[in-house]
Every structure is written in C-alpha cells, then in structure tokens.
C-alpha cells in the first residue's frame, strides 16, 4: 500500500455513481429472484401477466444480479482505489460518470427487452444485440479510463488490485463480444454443438473473468488496508493472478459433460476445474495470512467484514465447484437445484458480499463521514449471511432429492411435490435477501446524500 491518506485526489463521482447503481439494482435483482421463487410455489399468482412469467423473470434476475448489483458494486470500490493506489487522479471522472449513466441505460434496456419477451435464449447471453452493444460500450469506457489512469500514475509499482481490475475489464469486454456472437446481430448464436461449447466458455467466464477478478481486486485492496498490514506475498499474488487467467478460462465445458461434445475437451475442462485449486488457494492463503492475527480489525470495519466473509465463501464455492466438475458427482447434481445453490454461494456469498463490503468500505472514505448507520449495515450483513447459508442448505437438499429421485427412475413431474416445502423456505430466504437490499439502499442513499449544512 503506497497511497497517502491525506492527499485528496478526487471527488469520486464515478465511485459514488456506481455505489448508487449497485444499491438500486440490488433491490430490482433480488425482487426478481423473490418473484421467481414465489412463482415456483404459486404458479398462478401472476397468471397471464405475460411480462412476469417465470421464463422471463429468471433471466432478468440473473442479469440484474450480474450486471446491475454485483459488477457495479465492485466497480464502485475499484473506481475508488484505482487513483489512490496509482497516486494520480482518475483519467476522467466525467467519462466515469458518463459510464455510470450508460450503464444504467443498458440496465433499463435489459429490463424492457427481457420482460417484453426479447431474448437470445442463451444463459448469461440473453440480452439482444442492441443491448449487447451498450454492454460492450460500457466496458470499453471502463477499460479506457483504467488504462489511461494507469499510464498517468505517479506510483511506479502497480499493485495487484489494479492487475485484476484491468484484466477483468478488458477480458470481459472481449469475451462478451465472443460469447454473444456479436458479429451476428440476428440471434447472437452459433449453430448446434459449437454453440453450446462457446456459450459455456463465455458463461463461465462471466464468473471467471468478471466477478472473480473484480472481487479479488477489491479484497486485495480492502483487507490489507483494514488490518493495516502489508500483503503477505507478492509471489502468491503473481501465481494467483496468472493461474486464474490460464485455468479459469479452460473450464466452461464442465457444463457439458453429459452432452455429445469431444471427449478431449471434457478432459481439459475437468482437469482445469480441479486445477482451480491453485489460483483459489494462492489468493486465499495470501489474503488470510495477511489478516492472520488481526481479525479484530476486520471485525471492526463493516466493509472489511463483508469482504472477509466473501473470501470464506469463495473457498467453499470453489472447492464445491471443483468437486462438481467430476462426472460421478454430476450424475446426481446436474440439471437440478444443487447447481442453483452453488450459484448463490458464488454470486451472492462471494462476489455479492465483496461488492457490498467494497461499498461499505469506500463510502465513508468518499464522503468523509461515517456510514449513515453502521447498525443497518451490520443487520444487512447478517441477513445476507443467513440468507446465503440458508439457500445453500435448502437448494443443496432439493438438488439431492431431485438428482437421486431421477436416478432412481422417478419422473420430474412426480418429484415436484417432494420439493415444494423447500421452495417455500427458499422464497422465505429470498424475502430476507430482498429486505436486506431495501435496508442497504436506504443506508447508502442516506450516507451519500446528507442534509444540507453538514460539512463535507
């Protein structure tokens, strides 16, 4: 850490904008999740309201979580630490604010197109071509702002958080174009088995090249700052960074182990899924050894508490993910709610927690005042922690019921009543997460917009 706390380098308009974006869209995203979960227990609740059928609500939930809540949340913290660790002003706050604006236009278009029944029908690549262009443009602006800031740095050494942020932005911009087959505006897909291979290459990289590196970048910034200790190992930083880019990009085909794709490609995917232990543990050992003996400091800062919890979730979701890539495990877990549970540990427990942690860590430093309510943030922490652990238990249980029942010859239809109760509990937990988003939005808005007269 080489920044100087006393030098105020920026007004952080971009970071604030992404804070508000994330807090607002977290409400939308979690509401859509709650709505979808409720429709699974009461399918006629929204009968014949076309825009709200499950098949349109689910992709909206997923896209809003990925691009509305988590990514902007992580970008908020990133746009805060970027100029600080590079000891320069952000290349252009105006461009940053414009990016925030464009980002929100993109999100509104995504809501409008998905709910009105316009979809490319490919998971994580549902958004139609005009919206794709907005996504790519937004990422291009982020890349440009990042790159220009890096070149104007006055700090000669580039800290590991910057590596991850730059790589996440540029690689996601590229894989988004590739995965959405952006050169074919009429449908955005290849044909047949090659489409499945490309889709899951891209789909897995939304986690591997966007959420994970951004989250790791934020954790690498927040944890050493919070515990006031230097990073444990530069070598582990290097190993984790390069291993992540090499290994994570190989594993998408583990979604297709039961599909007729080339066997050698399955072998590559399974092998690298196991090898994910390397980048995961390199990062975790580094961050946990940095915090070793200093957990009191983590506990004292609500932002750091969210972030550190996120790193623990990262451990669980990654070990589980490596295990789930084994064909014998997939016989039971494929096609059912086990995978949905896995997704919630990853995106809510790991990157969502770190996104919120980043927000709560940087907000007081951006505004120069403490959070509006530390209690509310702490309350939200527990709601999300209970929610995500609950999701894990319930959805894993449902997955095991479904998977084993199917293997035992029970039809999908017949298993539905067996999982109904768990779906009710899941919707209850969804209500918990949605409520926490409301608290978070209120807290963040009150923190940023203080009553007139209070000095900045």
């Amino acid at each position, binding site marked *: 850490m080489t920044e100087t706390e006393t030098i105020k380098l920026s007004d952080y308009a971009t970071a604030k904008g992404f804070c508000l974006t994330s807090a607002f869209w977290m409400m939308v995203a979690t509401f859509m999740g709650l709505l979808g979960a409720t*429709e*699974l227990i009461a*399918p*006629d609740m*929204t*009968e*014949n309201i*076309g825009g709200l*059928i*499950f*098949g*349109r609500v689910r992709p909206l939930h997923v896209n809003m979580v990925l691009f509305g809540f988590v990514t902007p949340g992580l970008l908020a913290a990133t746009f805060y630490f970027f100029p600080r660790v590079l000891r320069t002003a952000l290349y252009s706050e105006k461009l940053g604010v414009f990016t925030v604006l464009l980002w929100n236009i993109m999100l509104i278009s995504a809501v409008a197109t998905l709910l009105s029944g316009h*979809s*490319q*029908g490919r998971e994580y690549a549902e958004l139609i071509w005009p919206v794709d262009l907005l996504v790519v443009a937004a990422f291009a602006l982020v890349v440009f702002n990042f790159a220009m800031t890096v070149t104007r740095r006055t700090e000669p050494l*580039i800290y590991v958080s*910057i*590596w991850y942020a730059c*790589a996440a932005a*540029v*690689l996601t911009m*590229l*894989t988004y174009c590739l995965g959405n087959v952006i050169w074919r505006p009429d449908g955005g*897909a*290849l*044909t*047949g*088995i*090659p*489409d*499945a*291979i*490309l889709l899951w290459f891209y789909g897995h990289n939304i986690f591997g*090249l966007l959420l994970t590196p951004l989250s790791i970048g934020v954790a690498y910034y927040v944890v050493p700052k919070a515990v006031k200790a230097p990073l444990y190992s530069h070598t582990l930083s290097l190993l984790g960074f390069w291993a992540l*880019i*090499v290994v994570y*990009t190989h594993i998408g*085909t583990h*979604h297709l182990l*039961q*599909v*007729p*794709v*080339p066997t050698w*490609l399955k072998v*590559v*995917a399974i092998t690298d899924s196991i090898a994910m232990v390397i980048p995961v543990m390199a990062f975790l050992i580094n961050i946990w050894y940095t915090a070793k003996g200093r957990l009191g400091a983590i506990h004292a800062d609500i932002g750091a508490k969210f972030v550190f919890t996120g790193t623990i979730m990262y451990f669980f979701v990654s070990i589980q993910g490596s295990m789930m890539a084994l064909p014998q495990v997939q*016989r039971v877990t*494929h*096609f*059912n709610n086990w995978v*949905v549970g896995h997704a919630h540990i990853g995106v809510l427990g790991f990157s969502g927690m770190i996104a919120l942690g980043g927000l709560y860590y940087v907000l007081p430093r951006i505004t120069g005042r403490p959070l509006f309510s530390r209690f509310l943030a702490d309350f939200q922490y527990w709601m999300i922690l209970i929610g995500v652990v609950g999701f894990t238990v319930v959805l894993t249980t449902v997955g095991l019921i*479904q998977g084993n029942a*199917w293997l035992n010859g*029970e*039809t*999908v*239809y*017949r298993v539905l*009543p067996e999982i109904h109760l768990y779906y009710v509990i899941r919707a209850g937990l969804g209500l918990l997460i949605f409520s926490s988003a409301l608290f978070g939005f209120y807290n963040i808005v009150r923190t940023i917009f203080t009553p007139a007269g209070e000095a900045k």
Partner: protein
Amino acid sequence: MRMTPAVIFAGSVLILAAVVTIVVVLPFYHTNQTKPSEIFRSRTAAEKAGRRIYINNGCVYCHSQSIRTLDWGIGAERIAQAGDYVADRPILLGSQRTGPDLSQEGGEHPDDWHMAHFVNPRYTSPLSIMPAFEFLGKKKLENLTAYVQSLGFRAADKRVKRQEKWKQRAIAAYEQGPVKNVQWIHDHLPAPWRKLPNPYPTSDAGLARGHKVYQDFCMGCHGPIGDGMGPAQPYLYPPPLNFTILKDRGVSGGILYYQIMNGITGTAMPYFKKHLESEKIWEVGNYVAEYFINQSDADTDDGGIDAAYEP
C-alpha cells in the same frame, strides 16, 4: 516479475487468445462438420416461429433438450446425439429440469392436450408449476405446439402420425355414443387384460392412496367427481371419459390398469407407466371403480396363491 501495464493488458489478452484457440476454435473445427443424425429433418415455418416463442419466453430455463445415458423419463429411449442439433441456433440444451426434458416430446400427446396444457398446465397436470401461457393467444400457441410436436424430428413425425391415426378412430367411436365408445375401447385391449379382475382387496387405506393419485394425475381432465368435466375438458376432443355412466359395461380392474398404464393414443389420455408404479395404478383404478363407476371387481378372483399381505 515486474507488472507493467503492457504485461497486464497484453499478457492477459494473449493468454485469453491462446485459451480461446484451444477450447473454442479447435472444438469448433472438431464439431462444426457434424453430420445430421438419422432422425434429423429441417423445421417448417410454423415450427421455427414456435421455437422463437419458446426462446423468448424462457422455456429453456425449466426444460432441457438433452437426453443422457442415465435418464429414465420421457425421451429416454433415445440418447441425444450431436447430429440432432445441427440446425439449432441457438442450441437449447438447458441447464435445469424443473419440467421434463423435451428432446422427444413430439407426438407424446395430441395437439389438443398441448392446447389445454398451455392455457393452464394444471388443467392437464395438476402438480405442474409451469406458468399459464394463455396470454400468448391462439396463433402463437398453435406455433408453439407445432414446435413442441416437432421435437424428435422424424421420430416425432412418426408419433404424431400415430396420434392422428388413432384420433380419427377415437372420435368416430365417441360420436357413436357412450355404449359403442366403451365397446371400442374394450375391443382394442388384449383379451387377458379384459378378463382380469383387480387381484387386490379393496381397503380404506388403498382407496385413500388411490384418491391421492387421482388428484395428482387424473382430476384435471376427468374432474373431481369422475364425470369427465375437469377444467381441461373444453379443450379436448374426444372429451375425457365420464366414469359415472360405466356401471355394468364390463370395466374390469384389468381394463382400468391397462388404460392407465398405456393411455389411449389419439386422445388426451396419456400413458402413466413412467409416472406410476404397479401398486399406484391398481389403487387409482380401484378408486375410480369404487367411487365413480360404483362397481369394483377387486379381489373377486379366488384363484392362485394368496399374496402375503392380504388380510
């Protein structure tokens, strides 16, 4: 290692390019020459329009089109092959089975069953948690039905033809009145099944279990009192059988069992042999016999060795 901007940006992009070559480009050239499988045919305009509706409404989030070697349900007779997907843009393998796999759905049911099912899935399938699609309107539902009936391509065409052939005969029989209709159904059963009484004794517990099965599988068409006036009835032709007029028409336990097991192709009556095991079929049959037909032949045959559980 000194991490400069060039190392970070160029390094990560070069790695990505190398990985894309290995896991996207090479597999592309390995798989893009896949030959169509023996069941493949191209889709009609209506089927293509239906596929678009399927995509836009997110059917893929609950229905896979990817039969695996370990599957038991609908379509499990044929493991998916790469050559089945050569015209699929995008491919719709799916990642969840909240509903059944649809790879081979074409011809499993006649069109009118699909219409009732799309208007509200609980009309035909009371346990279903699928959304109602009546809001799409008739034209779109017809296209969607055309697409679903094409799943399985030539294999589906064969099944659809079979549905159409038997539908004509079932309608002809129905239009001759209830007596001839029942006679027609009985005539198409293997003789040993016609004569076979329900071998198990009637019991309160068994009737309660039969009642549960009836509610979960039968009530949407045959109605809560077995008169064939369930909510799906207005959409189905020939309409669901009215059990309450079948007394003294020779409906044996064996006939009930056989029809529940195999369904009546051409009508909306599906086969339930994948959903229900033997005991459940006997018990729902006896429930229908006792409560709706008001005549059961359960345990009337005293031949054979008594089963160990008989009272």
